[in-house]
């Protein structure tokens, strides 16, 4: 976090070229507060923009700066976030904590988690339309190191100003000191879950857990294991806090860490995938597989999701909305599988009522584990956001 008074000019947000739905605000020292703006929407929202700038400037005590705003159709959510970041940076203060009464009920499914760069406002408002089970506003790898503060402001206002009904809103926070700012700002927001990147041991999680406990936060945690060391400590990590709701594996970094190359067959990560999955199941939490890097060939995406499902994972990360339907198809049972699963559940339930023991379906044994697998398959296929 930048601290101290404003000495030189700086800018937040982006303008020019192909940029849409954003506003670039250049902040320069000035004897008194003043502003100017040009907007691609002019004159249709000129009064609204003027009002918004004046209102937020007033909240910050009208700092002695001049704002030059170049608007390419930013939504009010973006204007507030950019102005807040500009005034905070100019005043040397942190982004104020976002305190929200809103609590969205997750569906319980995490088949698809759509990553959205938190500093690209154009991509955020429509993310829920693609019906992923979860949206991850990413503050970490997709955000340039110099733009962390404005991205945090964007995540905070997006969490509050958009409707996330039916979707688990996650934020991938940064690691280290910036991560602490991220967590402090969003701990009381409507964000349901923090993804904690680059977790190597339980202490990494417990430190965050303590911060959240101190603030009385409701936010749950998903540690992201992305290193050989993290894989070695997988169970210890998975079981260290009751806030942990799932364990995820980040293969891009992991594969680099072990000196391998990521392949479509995934043999290089078979150990890590098995270890993380086993640790999650042993800790009683949900195992989540890594992102699939391609989004053109949707058959490959579906196959990757199906393999993850067959291995015991309950979801994968998505880097593009196009992947979501394919992922959901991959996690759906085939009609034959679904028929058999229904048969198992029905037969098992009947046997429980009648006091019968181990039963057979289609020539195979159907015991408690078989029943539980069948039940999960039905849930993954029929609940949530099937397209």
């Amino acid at each position, binding site marked *: 976090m930048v601290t101290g008074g404003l000495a030189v000019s700086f800018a937040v947000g982006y303008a020019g070229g192909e940029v849409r739905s954003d506003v670039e605000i250049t902040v320069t020292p000035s004897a008194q507060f003043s502003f100017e703006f040009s907007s691609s929407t002019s004159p*249709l929202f000129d009064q*609204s923009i003027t009002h918004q700038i004046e209102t937020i400037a007033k909240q910050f005590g009208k700092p002695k700066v001049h704002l030059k705003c170049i608007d390419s159709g930013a939504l009010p959510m973006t204007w507030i976030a950019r102005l807040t970041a500009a005034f905070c940076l100019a005043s040397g203060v942190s982004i104020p904590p976002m305190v929200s009464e809103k609590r969205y009920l997750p569906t319980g499914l995490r088949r698809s988690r759509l990553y959205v760069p938190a500093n690209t406002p154009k991509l955020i408002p429509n993310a829920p339309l693609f019906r992923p089970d979860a949206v991850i506003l990413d503050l970490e790898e997709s955000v340039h190191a110099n733009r962390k503060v404005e991205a945090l402001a964007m995540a905070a206002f997006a969490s509050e100003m958009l409707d996330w009904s039916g979707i688990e809103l996650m934020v991938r926070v940064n690691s280290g000191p910036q991560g602490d700012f991220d967590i402090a700002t969003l701990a009381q927001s409507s964000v349901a879950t923090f993804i904690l990147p680059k977790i190597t041991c339980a202490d990494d999680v417990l430190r965050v857990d303590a911060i959240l406990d101190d603030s009385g936060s409701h936010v749950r945690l998903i540690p992201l294991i992305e290193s050989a060391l993290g894989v070695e400590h997988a169970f210890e990590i998975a079981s260290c806090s009751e806030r942990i709701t799932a364990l995820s594996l980040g293969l891009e970094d992991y594969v680099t860490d072990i000196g391998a190359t990521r392949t479509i067959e995934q043999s290089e990560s078979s150990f890590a995938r098995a270890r993380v999955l086993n640790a999650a199941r042993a800790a009683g939490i949900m195992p989540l597989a890594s992102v699939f890097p391609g989004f053109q060939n949707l058959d490959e995406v579906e196959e990757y999701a199906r393999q993850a499902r067959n291995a015991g994972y309950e979801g994968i990360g998505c880097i593009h*909305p196009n992947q979501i339907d394919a992922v959901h198809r991959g996690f759906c049972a085939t009609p034959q599988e679904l028929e058999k699963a229904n048969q198992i559940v029905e037969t098992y339930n009947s046997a429980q009522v009648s006091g019968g023991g181990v039963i057979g379906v289609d020539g195979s044994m159907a015991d408690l584990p078989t029943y539980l697998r069948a039940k999960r398959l039905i849930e993954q296929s029929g609940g949530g956001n099937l397209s």
Partner: protein
Amino acid sequence: MIPDLSGFDMAGYRGIAQEPLRSNRVAPKVKSSADYPPNGDKRTPTILEALKKAGLRDGMVVSTHHHLRNGDEVALQLFEAIRSLGVKDIVWFPSAVFPCHEALIPYLEDGTIHHIEGSLNGPLGDYATEGRMRGLAVLRSHGNRYRSIQDGDVHVDIAVIAAPSSDYFGNCTGAIGKSACGGLGFAVADSEYADHTIVVTDNLVEFPCVPWQIAGNKVDQVVELDTIGDPNQIVAGTTVLTSSPERQRIARLAAEFVKAAGILREGWSFQAGAGGISLSFVVYVQQMMATSGIKASFARGGSTKYLVEMLENGQVGAILDGQTFDLEGVRSIRENPNHVMTTPLNSYCYHTKGNFASILDCAVLGATEVDINFNANVVTHSDGRLLHGIGGWQDALFSQCTILAVPSIRNRIPIIRDELTTLCGPGELIDVIVTERGIAINPMRQDLIDSAKGSGLPLKSIQEIQRESEILAGGKPEQFEPDETTIGLVTWVDGTVIDTIRKVSKKL
């Protein structure tokens, strides 16, 4: 909603289907072969000499056509020649303008061109919107442009037709040559009715240029030029699908709607252009048709490689081609007898014995604004500035099911408005609005409402979509009052005026 037309010698809009205002078409002048070389060689060395021979004088109406699209280099050479002759106040009557025509602004400013009668966009749109053009911009659809010539609203004195190949007699085609562009359909009306027609070409071929698209009997002179256009800007190598997930979603919802509504059935027909959403719509319906084995009887377009693929694999029986957008389209129109060049008379003209547009089962179009009664705007931005030509948009509204596939919000500006900035198409012809937030069916189409019910598609009222986009935008756009001065007239397919366009100050 009839605009105030006091001071203009034009009739106001009377409804979508009224009797023609005139009972006879105009007749072009009778010409005699005695006035043309017996050996058929109509070549003149330069445009300048051709214009002199044509009797060019101040105030004449001179037409060109847009089949060379943004690669057109004829209009500039033409007006340079006109300027060098010292002729003033020409009314330029193009079938459409493109950004490359920004280079003609100096000719408007020095009085060579008096005004442009046609749809305007880009820098020329700004020029007109800011009130800098002397005459009115009269906006017409492709079908209405044809109608305006045949009904006599516009008398073309000299037509200049850019032909990618021509022989010395004037038989010409757009299907071959280094500047090949596909069909020359937009120029046909001018060749039929203009007093004088000049074909310019950069590929003079031996007589006869066969198969010709425009017959040399309609041509007075042929001028050979070094170039008529930039091939890279005339047609795209390949037309590119939209990469925007939101636009892909709109296209997919539109495709799923036509399937759910029972429009996509054996023998159906459709029109979709080369815009990002339309192109993706074609790809989605192609996949659906491949899965179900359904075949379309014909498709209208803007032909692209995607339509050509469907034609060649038997999914579409014929392409009735208004213009050709990519190299595959050009190849196909040259090689495939079922890929047919059409003229605006065939496809769109309202004052004729029926046209293809109303036969279409479905047309997928765009819009800049839609109001809550499904009326729509396609020519101006919400700030009043001229943004697009009408093209074939108004004409295609007569399809059996017209779908406007549009984002609900564009850079903060909600598309669904209480009131349009400019009315171009009446809501009674617009059946469905597909946005990324949901699908709104016109309450007048209970049949479509019934057939899409239970489909699982996100069906919403148009007011719901409006409300959602206004919440995102932070409210309704603010009212602004344009200048009193009228700078353009938007005409309906029958030539009546459906709305006026007023001057807007220059954007700072």
